[in-house]
C-alpha cells in the first residue's frame, strides 16, 4: 500500500469531503494561499476557491462563532485553529454555543461542524504553543473528540467527523505531520467509538492516545524482549469512548497504564483509569496508572521540556513494576 504523511492524509480527507459535499467549507487563519503554517492545507484553495477555503483575520472567537451560526443554518464548516492553545480564546463559542445548541433546542437545531486543531510538546515552542488540551473539551457534554494516531487514522476519522451531525474537535499532533503510514487509495471511514487494538498481549494493557500510541508501541517492543506481553489499544475517539474494548482487555491482562499527553491531573488518563477501576475492579491485580504530561506549563528549555512528557522508557519502567507486583503507590 502507498504511504503518505499525516499532513497529506488530512489534506486528502478535506479535499474528498469538499468535493462530495458542497455545504462544507474551511475557515481559519492563513488557510488559503499559505495553506497554514504547517502547510497541511496546501493546494486546497487552488481547487476550491476562496469561498470554500476562507482566510480570516486573527479573530478566533469571531470565526468560531461564525462557524457555529453557519452550521446551525445548513452549512458544514471545518474550522482550522492554528494551535490547540488558542482553544482558550474560543471556549465560549465552542462550549456554551456549539456544544449545547442541539440539547437546548430540544433536538431541533444541529451544529455539524468540525474544529481541527493540534496538540503536542517537544517542539521548543514554550508554554503557549505546546499544550494538549483535549481533556478540556472532552469534559463538555455535546462535543465529540477524536485523536488520530497516524496518517491512516487522521484521514478516516476526519471524514467521519465531517459527516457527523455534531460539533467534533480533532486534535492532530503537530509533531506527527510528517510521519508516514500506509493509507489506501480507496475511500474509507473510521467510525467513532471503536477502539483499535494495535497489538495483542496478555500481561498488561497500554491505552494510549495520539502520538502516545507510538510511545506505547515502543514500550511494548522493549517489554516483549523481557517476556512481558503488552496489549496496546488506541481509543481513537475519547468522546465517544469505547469502554467495552478497554474493559475486555483489562479483564484479560489485569493491569493497565493509560497514556495521554495532556496534563496528568484531571485529565483524559484520569477519566479512563477511573472507568476501569469502576468497571473492572475485581479483575485488576494492580492499580491502573495514569501517565500524562507533568502538571507544569510546558517549559521552553529542551533540558526541561523533554522530561515533561511520557516516554517509552518511563512506560517500560512502570509496566515492569506493575507486572512484578511492586507496590508503586505506597502511601
Amino acid at each position, binding site marked *: 500500500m502507498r504511504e503518505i504523511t499525516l499532513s497529506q492524509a488530512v489534506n486528502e480527507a478535506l479535499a474528498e469531503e469538499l468535493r462530495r459535499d458542497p455545504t462544507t467549507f474551511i475557515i481559519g487563519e492563513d488557510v488559503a494561499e499559505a495553506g497554514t503554517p504547517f502547510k497541511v492545507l496546501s493546494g486546497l484553495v487552488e481547487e476550491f476557491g476562496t469561498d470554500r477555503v476562507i482566510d480570516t483575520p486573527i479573530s478566533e472567537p469571531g470565526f468560531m462563532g461564525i462557524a457555529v451560526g453557519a452550521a446551525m443554518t445548513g452549512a458544514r464548516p471545518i474550522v482550522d485553529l492554528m494551535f490547540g492553545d488558542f482553544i482558550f480564546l474560543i471556549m465560549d463559542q465552542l462550549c456554551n454555543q456549539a456544544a449545547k445548541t442541539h440539547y437546548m433546542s430540544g433536538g431541533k437545531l444541529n451544529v455539524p461542524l468540525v474544529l481541527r486543531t493540534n496538540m503536542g510538546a517537544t517542539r521548543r515552542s514554550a508554554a503557549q504553543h505546546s499544550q494538549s488540551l483535549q481533556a478540556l473539551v472532552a469534559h463538555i457534554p455535546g462535543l465529540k473528540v477524536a485523536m488520530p494516531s497516524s496518517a491512516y487514522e487522521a484521514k478516516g476519522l476526519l471524514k467521519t467527523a465531517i459527516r457527523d451531525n455534531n460539533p467534533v474537535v480533532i486534535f492532530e499532533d503537530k509533531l506527527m505531520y510528517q510521519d508516514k503510514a500506509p493509507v489506501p487509495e480507496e475511500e474509507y471511514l473510521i467510525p467513532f467509538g471503536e477502539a483499535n487494538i494495535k497489538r495483542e498481549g496478555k500481561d498488561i494493557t497500554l491505552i494510549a492516545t495520539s502520538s502516545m500510541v507510538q510511545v506505547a508501541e515502543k514500550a511494548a517492543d522493549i517489554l516483549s524482549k523481557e517476556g512481558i506481553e503488552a496489549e496496546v489499544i488506541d481509543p481513537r475517539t475519547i468522546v465517544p469512548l469505547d469502554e467495552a474494548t478497554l474493559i475486555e482487555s483489562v479483564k484479560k491482562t489485569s493491569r493497565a497504564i493509560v497514556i495521554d499527553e495532556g496534563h496528568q491531573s484531571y485529565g483524559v488518563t484520569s477519566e479512563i483509569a477511573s472507568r476501569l477501576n469502576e468497571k473492572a475492579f475485581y479483575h485488576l491485580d494492580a492499580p491502573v496508572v495514569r501517565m500524562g504530561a507533568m502538571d507544569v506549563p510546558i517549559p521552553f528549555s529542551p533540558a*526541561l521540556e523533554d522530561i515533561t512528557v511520557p516516554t517509552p522508557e518511563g512506560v517500560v519502567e512502570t509496566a515492569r513494576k506493575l507486572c512484578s507486583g511492586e507496590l508503586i503507590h505506597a502511601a
Partner: protein
Amino acid sequence: MSAAKKTTKSNSDDYLRMYRQMVRIRTFEDNANQLYLSAKMPGLTHMYSGEEAVAVGICEALTDNDRITSTHRGHGHCVAKGAEFKQMFCELLGKEEGYCRGKGGSMHIADQSHGNLGANAIVGGSMGIATGSALRAKLQGHDDVTVCFFGDGATAQGLLYEVMNMAALWNLPVIYACENNGYSEYTKTEEIAAGSITARAEAFGIEAFKVDGQDVLAVNELTQKLVARCRKGEGPFFIELETYRYHGHHVGDINREYYRSKDEEKDWKENRDPIIRFRGWLVEQGIATEDEIEAMNAEIENDAADAVSYAEAAKYPDISEVDMHVFAD
C-alpha cells in the same frame, strides 16, 4: 528626519543612545538568525529587524518605572527597554541564566526589572495586561505609563475593543502602539483589517496618531508628548506606526514571494531603513563622525559575539527546576 532640533550636548547623548539601541537590536537579531540557521537555537523565532525605530523611539521616551507589554516579535522591545545581550541569548538557548531561566524562550523573553511585563505568544494576549497595569497606576496614584505593543494583525482581536473602551472610560495612562508592518503572518494587512486602524481607537474617543515608524525621532517626539500627557491623566492614546519586517514572519519563512515581492523588501531596506537614515542624520548634524559610528557598530558586534559564546557555553537549568515557579510562594 523629522526633527531639526537644536542639538545640545544632552540631546546629542540621547541621539547617540537611540542609534546605539537600534544597532543593538539589529545586531542581536542577526546573531539570533545565525543561531537558528546553524541549528543552535531550539525552536523558531520572529525577527524584529526593520522595526527598530518603533521600539527605540518609544522606549527612549520611557523610564524604568514605565511598563511595556511585548509580543511574539519581542526581542526589539526587550533590548529597547534596557535588557542585556548575555541574559537574552541565554534565554534564546534555554539556559539557566536567561531572563526567564530558560522557561520562556524567544516568545516570552523579557527583562522584568526594566518594566517589561513579558513577550506574549498569544496575538493580542497582552492588551488586557497593559490596560490592567495602567489601571493599577491610576488606582495607586503612581504616574507611570504603560505601552502596549501589538501588530496590525492583532487589531482583529476583540479584546482590544473591550479594553480600549474601559481605558477611555476611565482615562487610563496607557498607550496602544500598533506596529503596522503591512503583514499579519502571510497575509497583507488590507486583507485582514477593514477600514482605518486609527479610527478604531477614535470611535472610543481616544486620540489616535499615525507616524512614520522608520523615523526614530518622529516616533520619539510623539511618544514623549503622549507620555507626558498620560502622566497628567490625559490618556489613553493610540499610535499606528508604519513599519516593515525585513525577515519572514519567522526565521523559517524563507520562500515568501507568494505573499510579498523581493522588490518591495528591497525598497524598504534600501530606501527607508531606520538605522541608515538616522546614521546619515547624525553625521549631517555633526553629532557623530562616520568613524565614531563605525567604532560603535564594531563594539556592539563584539559585545554580541561575546554574549553568544557565553550563552553557548552556559549551562541548562537543572531538571529540578521543571516544577519550580508553577506557583508563587
